C-alpha cells in the first residue's frame, strides 16, 4: 500500500507557481527523499500534506484515505523549522505535543535520550542552539512511535557529528520498517539514506522512482586523437557504451557504472588505425547528475 499519493497538486502564491501539477506515490516502508534546490517547492508540498497550506488544485491520499487530523497524529513531522514555545522547557514543549497526539508523557525521557538532549530537558527552548532545537524537533516527531515520519531538512543546522547521528537514527528507523519522507537539498544525504527519490525543480516534478534508477551512476571515458572525425567514425563500431558525446576537445563515451574498460578501448582504436593522444576514465559525480537533472 502507498503511504502517500499525490494527485496533481498545484499551488500558487498569488501569481507565483510554487508547485505545478505534482503527482507521485510514496510506497510503504520506503525512505523517500524529496530532492530539489532551494525554492523548488519541497516545503510547500509537505505543508500542503500537513494541512498548513491549502493547495490551489489537486488532492492527496494518506494511507489510501482522505487526509484528517487523526491521521496527522499518527505521523511525526518536522517541517522547515523547529516550532516550540520559547518560554517553556524542552520537556514541557514535548508534553504539549504528546497531549495533542493523544499520547502519554512517559515516552518523553526516552525520545529525549534518543537525540541526546535528556541532560538539557529542563532548559528553556530559547536557550537552545540551532542544532539542539533541530534535535528537539526530531525528538517530538518520535513521540508515540509513529509508523510514518516526515522530515524537512532534518540535518539543518547540525554539526558533522550531529548530521552523522541523525543519519544513523533515520537508518535505524528505516530498518524498524517505518516509512520516512525526507526533503533535502543535500544530494549525498538522499543518496546515503533513501531508497526512493523524487526530484523537484521550480515546482515541477522532474522524476521519481528508485534511487538506483533515478540517480544512476555512469563511467565516462574521455578520448582524444589528432584526427577527431576519424576517431568518432571508428568508435561508432565499438560496442558496450550507452552514448557518445562530442565535447570541445575530446569525445566522451558513457558507460553503465563499472563496465568501462580503458585497455579495450585503447586496443580497439589502435587496431583501427587511430592513435590516441588522450585517454581518461572519469567517474561522474552525483552532483553533476543532479545538476543535469535539474537543469533540463
Amino acid at each position: 500500500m502507498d503511504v502517500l499519493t499525490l494527485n496533481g497538486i498545484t499551488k500558487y502564491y498569488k501569481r507565483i507557481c510554487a508547485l505545478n501539477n505534482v503527482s507521485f506515490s510514496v510506497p510503504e516502508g520506503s525512505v523517500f527523499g524529496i530532492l530539489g534546490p532551494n525554492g523548488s517547492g519541497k516545503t510547500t508540498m509537505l505543508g500542503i500534506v500537513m494541512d498548513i497550506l491549502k493547495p490551489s488544485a489537486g488532492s492527496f491520499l494518506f494511507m489510501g484515505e482522505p487526509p484528517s487530523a487523526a491521521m496527522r497524529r499518527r505521523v511525526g513531522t518536522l517541517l522547515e523549522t523547529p516550532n516550540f514555545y520559547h518560554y517553556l522547557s524542552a520537556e514541557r514543549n514535548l508534553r504539549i505535543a504528546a497531549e495533542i497526539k493523544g499520547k502519554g508523557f512517559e515516552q518523553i525521557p526516552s525520545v529525549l535520550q534518543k537525540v541526546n538532549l535528556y541532560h538539557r530537558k529542563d532548559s528553556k527552548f530559547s536557550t537552545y542552539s540551532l542544532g539542539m532545537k533541530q534535535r528537539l524537533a526530531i525528538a517530538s516527531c518520535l513521540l508515540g512511535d509513529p509508523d510514518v515520519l516526515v522530515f524537512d531538512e532534518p540535518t539543518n543546522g547540525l554539526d558533522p557529528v550531529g548530521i552523522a547521528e541523525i543519519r544513523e537514527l533515520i537508518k535505524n528507523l528505516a530498518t524498524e520498517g517505518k516509512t520516512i519522507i525526507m526533503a533535502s537539498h543535500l544530494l549525498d544525504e538522499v543518496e546515503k539514506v533513501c531508497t526512493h527519490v523524487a526530484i523537484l525543480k521550480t515546482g515541477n516534478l522532474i522524476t521519481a522512482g528508485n534511487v538506483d534508477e533515478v540517480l544512476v551512476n555512469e563511467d565516462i571515458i574521455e578520448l582524444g586523437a589528432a584526427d577527431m572525425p576519424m576517431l568518432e567514425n571508428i568508435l561508432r563500431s565499438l560496442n558496450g557504451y550507452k552514448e557518445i558525446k562530442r565535447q570541445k576537445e575530446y569525445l566522451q563515451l558513457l558507460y553503465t557504472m563499472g563496465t568501462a574498460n580503458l585497455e579495450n578501448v585503447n586496443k580497439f582504436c589502435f587496431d583501427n588505425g587511430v592513435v590516441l593522444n588522450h585517454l581518461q576514465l572519469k567517474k561522474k559525480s552525483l552532483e553533476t547528475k543532479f545538476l543535469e537533472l535539474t537543469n533540463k
Partner: protein
Amino acid sequence: MLQLLKIEWLKVKNYRTFWILAVLYLLSIWGANYIGYSIQEKIYASKEAGNMADMILGGRPYAFPKVWQMTTSATSYILFISGLLMIILVTNEFSFKTHRQNIIDGVTRTEFIVTKMTCGVIIALVSTLVVFLTALFFGLIQNPSDISFQDSQYIVYFFIQAVSYTWLAVFFGLIFKRSGIAIGVFFLYTLIIENVLALIFNRALPQSYFLNGIGNYFPIQSTDELLPVPVFEQVKKQLDEPDINITMQLSFAFAYLIIFFFISKRKFETDDL
C-alpha cells in the same frame, strides 16, 4: 474541548508574562473602583457637596443597587487589557509558528481557533467574576445591611462586553499576526478610533427614534452603551434624552459576536498558515 483546553493550559501554565499581566489586570479592576470610591467619599465628606452630588448622581454610586452599574461601567475602561492578554495568546502562536506545529501534530484548524475563542470567554468570565466580587465588596463596605441584587443585570452586560473585547482581540491578532501592531491597533481602535467614528457618524446622520445615533451601534460602542456611567441621569431625564434601547443594543452586540466568531473561524480555516 476539555482536552483542547488542557493543551492551552499547558501553554500558559509556565508563561510568566501572561500571569504578571493577568494578576495586575485583575487587581486593577478593584483598583480602578477604589479610585472611584475614594472620589465619592471625598465628595460626600462635606454635606453641601454631598447634597449636590445626590442631585446629579441620584445617590451614592458605590451603594446598592447603583454599585452594580458603577463598578461595571468604571471597569469597562480597563477592559482593553483583557484584549491585550488575548492578543498575546494568539500572536505568540504566530511568532513561534506553533500554530503550524499544533495543526501538524493533529489539532484541526477549527479546533485551534475555537479553542482560542473559548479562552476569550474564560478571560471574560474571570473578569466578570472579579467585577462581581468588587461590586459586592464596595456595596458591602458602603452599607452591609443594604445588600441588593437589583440592577445586577449590569454584570451580564459586562460579561457580554468582555467577550466582545476578547473576540475582537482574537480577530486583530489573526489579521496582524505580530503582537506589536495588533496590540497598538487594538488599543487605538477600542480607546480612540471607534469613539471618534461614532461621534462623527452620530453628528453626520440624523438620529431616528429607532436607532438613536448609528455610532452607538458600532462593535465596542454597542456594548459600551449598555454600561453608562451613572451620572447626570436626572439631568438627562430633564433634557428628555432618549433612553438606551437595551434590546437593540443587545441585538447588535450579539450580532457582532456572531460576526467576529465566524469571520475569525473562516479566516483561520482557509488561510495559508
